[in-house]
């Protein structure tokens, strides 16, 4: 299936989950990454159960914060 990952067209096997995509894309410090699929944010607890489908647009966003 065709995915757009961080703006880049990619080809992946059908049935891929968000958790698997994070591994394949070698996303660093995934515990601090927010994922959106077609502009909808995915709860981190369901990455392993969320399957991607052909045409999905996936973004990885790093948490940014701090203080004082």
């Amino acid at each position, binding site marked *: 299936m065709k995915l757009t990952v961080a*703006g880049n067209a990619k080809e992946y096997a059908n049935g891929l989950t968000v958790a698997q995509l994070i591994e394949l894309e070698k996303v660093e410090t995934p515990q601090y990454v927010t994922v959106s699929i077609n502009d909808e944010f995915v709860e981190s607890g369901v990455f392993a159960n969320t399957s991607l489908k052909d045409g999905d647009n996936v973004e990885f966003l790093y948490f940014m914060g701090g203080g004082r």
Partner: protein
Amino acid sequence: MTTIRLKQQDYEAIVAHAKSGLPNEACGLLAGKADGDVKTVEKIYLLSNPDNSPEHFSIDPKEQLAAVKDMRANGFVPLGNFHSHPSTPARLSEEDIRLAYDGKASYLILSLAGESPVLNAFGVVGGEVVPQKLSIF
């Protein structure tokens, strides 16, 4: 040493954004071009601070996503972020360092603690703070 080039008008917009957010911290993103060790900021994104706190900030993922798409559409790359310290110096706090995951990003801190604003730039590589040169033009 990495150099961050920031337009005077963008510097002034960051200061105004931070002052308008007082007493809370204010934050935003920086985008532009990177050429070796020189990063030129072409666009700043003045974002909200969902923490609404004088001691903490975080960037709203929805605003972050919109900014990332805009950067891409304009041919810019993400260069880093900025946030204000309303009552503490323009240095990275322990929390700032702990939450600085991106070794390629520049972290700009604007202090409003003194009579005049002070803006400094840093990188964080492997938990170590690396000062960067800030050039306002």
